[in-house]
């Protein structure tokens, strides 16, 4: 077995030293009838070549985004990843390291986490960031739980324009923790309407920007309303490339801002692993979930980094911890951070502008199709269109032309007939002008 270094002779020597006949003797503490039943009805070992062939055959049954004209976003985005990013995350010393609990021999991981926290803070326009959550949806739920701890109130308001799966994750976690949630209808609400949704129990309102349907919003007024009611504004972002161009949560007055970080440095991976960004104001530092990396010195006075404020965390505070999270998204944060280091402000701004320009180009093409109505007045790189027929059916039809045309909104909101004809479409720097023309042409033909 290529991954197990012992020879039979090694095992014999080890058994002799232990004073046993064979390894079975070490398992006698497990009742015999349990051991007898533990036979694994599984295939025998395969060679590296055989495994590779087996897995390649399965991989071929999937259609890769790269092989079609691709217009799907809705919380996961296809962007280009520089080759050096994957090389960096495959460095043994990053890939096969553990959580940096021994900081003297983990400065590599700790320094990139410190850089990552700084990048996230600046990207979101916030004061501080943690060392990552699992993904955008769990980061959103954790943000709401933090708001309950901060305000000592027990109800959260969830915008109707938040990604439906994010809404479910937030609602579930709040409910199981004994808190209340109220979900608003999926539509624009003016200030007067929003003022009315707050009551004395409201700890926070969580909104998404750009929202699930692609609208770009300014939540500055909402921040003021929330603060007047002693509640927090939480802004969540599923497409963090947008922050290269649009107003940041910090500029709007958000108290906590979370995001899905996949767009920078991480592949689509069928939904995971991704990384959640969690940023907030310094005054809420001690209510932050998850790991935090801080700057300090060693006994020689050299600048060093270390996981800090760990007394918040489960391994120390146990049942009183701010979160149960332990393992987070280490290597995905490195991919994010390395890609962001390459981009810098200049690259990110350009990338964001290209995304917006591509989406505008797509807007212009699709808006010329007679039976298509565009739902958005604002957008970054995705928007929602109304089709004259069921969007899921149309997506299936376009698949025949090697087009993955976007997300039929009904896939995530199945119980609302108004959504049946809505299609959420996305363009990024990966989208070519030919893709857009081809898509518009085929869509027009179908309709």
């Amino acid at each position: 077995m290529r991954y197990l270094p012992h020879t039979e002779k090694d095992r014999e020597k080890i058994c002799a030293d232990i004073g046993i006949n064979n390894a079975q003797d070490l398992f006698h503490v497990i009742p015999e009838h349990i051991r007898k039943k533990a036979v694994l009805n599984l295939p025998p070992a395969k060679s590296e070549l055989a495994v590779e062939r087996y897995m390649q055959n399965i991989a071929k049954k999937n259609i890769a985004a790269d092989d079609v004209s691709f217009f799907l976003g809705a919380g996961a985005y296809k962007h280009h990843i520089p080759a050096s990013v994957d090389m960096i995350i495959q460095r043994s010393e990053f890939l096969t390291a553990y959580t940096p609990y021994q900081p003297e021999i983990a400065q590599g991981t700790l320094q990139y986490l410190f850089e990552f926290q700084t990048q996230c803070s600046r990207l979101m326009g916030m004061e501080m960031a943690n060392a990552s959550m699992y993904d955008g949806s769990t980061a959103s739920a954790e943000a709401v739980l933090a708001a309950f701890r901060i305000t000592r109130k027990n109800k959260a308001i969830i915008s109707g324009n938040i990604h439906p799966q994010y809404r479910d994750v937030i609602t579930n976690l709040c409910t199981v923790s004994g808190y209340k949630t109220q979900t608003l209808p999926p539509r624009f609400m003016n200030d007067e309407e929003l003022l009315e949704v707050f009551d004395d129990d409201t700890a926070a309102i969580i909104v998404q920007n750009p929202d699930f349907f692609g609208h770009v919003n300014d939540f500055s007024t909402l921040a003021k309303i929330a603060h007047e009611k002693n509640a927090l504004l939480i802004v969540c972002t599923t497409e963090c490339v947008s922050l290269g161009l649009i107003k940041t949560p910090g500029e709007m007055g958000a108290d906590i801002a979370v995001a899905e970080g996949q767009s920078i440095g991480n592949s689509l991976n069928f939904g995971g692993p991704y990384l959640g960004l969690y940023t907030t104001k310094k005054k809420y530092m001690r209510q932050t979930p998850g790991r935090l990396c801080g700057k300090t010195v060693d006994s020689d006075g050299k600048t060093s980094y270390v996981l800090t404020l760990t007394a918040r965390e489960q391994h120390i505070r146990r049942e009183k911890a701010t979160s149960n999270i332990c393992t987070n998204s280490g290597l995905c944060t490195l991919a994010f951070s390395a890609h962001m280091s390459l981009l810098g402000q200049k690259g990110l701004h350009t990338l964001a502008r290209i995304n917006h320009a591509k989406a505008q180009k797509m807007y212009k093409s699709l808006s010329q199709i007679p039976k298509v109505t565009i739902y958005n007045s604002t957008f970054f790189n995705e928007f929602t269109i109304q089709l004259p027929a069921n969007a899921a059916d149309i997506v299936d039809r376009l698949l025949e032309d090697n087009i993955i045309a976007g997300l039929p909104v009904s896939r995530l909101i199945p119980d609302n007939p108004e959504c049946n004809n809505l299609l959420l479409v996305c363009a990024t720097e990966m989208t070519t002008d030919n893709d857009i023309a081809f898509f518009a042409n085929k869509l027009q033909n179908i309709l």
Partner: protein
Amino acid sequence: MTEYYFSEEHEYIRKENEVFYMGISNFAQEQLGDIVFVELPDVGSTFKKGETIATVESVKAASDVYAPCDCTVVSINTTLEEKPETVNENAETNGWFMCLTINDETQLKELMSQDTYTNFIQNVS
């Protein structure tokens, strides 16, 4: 006139000129090691004896501090926000956590005097 009253959980109440200061004993801070943060309650909040009134964090531990008697928080020691090490340096003087009002001073009699506490911690260690 300064009097100290100690609990078995190593909190003290210091009565000084009719003001009640509360903190953790010198013995407690030694046990905790370098203190990095003290979480204090809101001024005006009231506690029953035995309820968690504050939390003390060292690098690798977080310990609850319990109200030694029924009390209301009148003020907190804001020095500790910037300088939590004050508790390590002067636990029973400058390192006080908060000032309290105590309605039922008879509860103090259930606590230990300085001498009794000194004996108590010798048995603990």
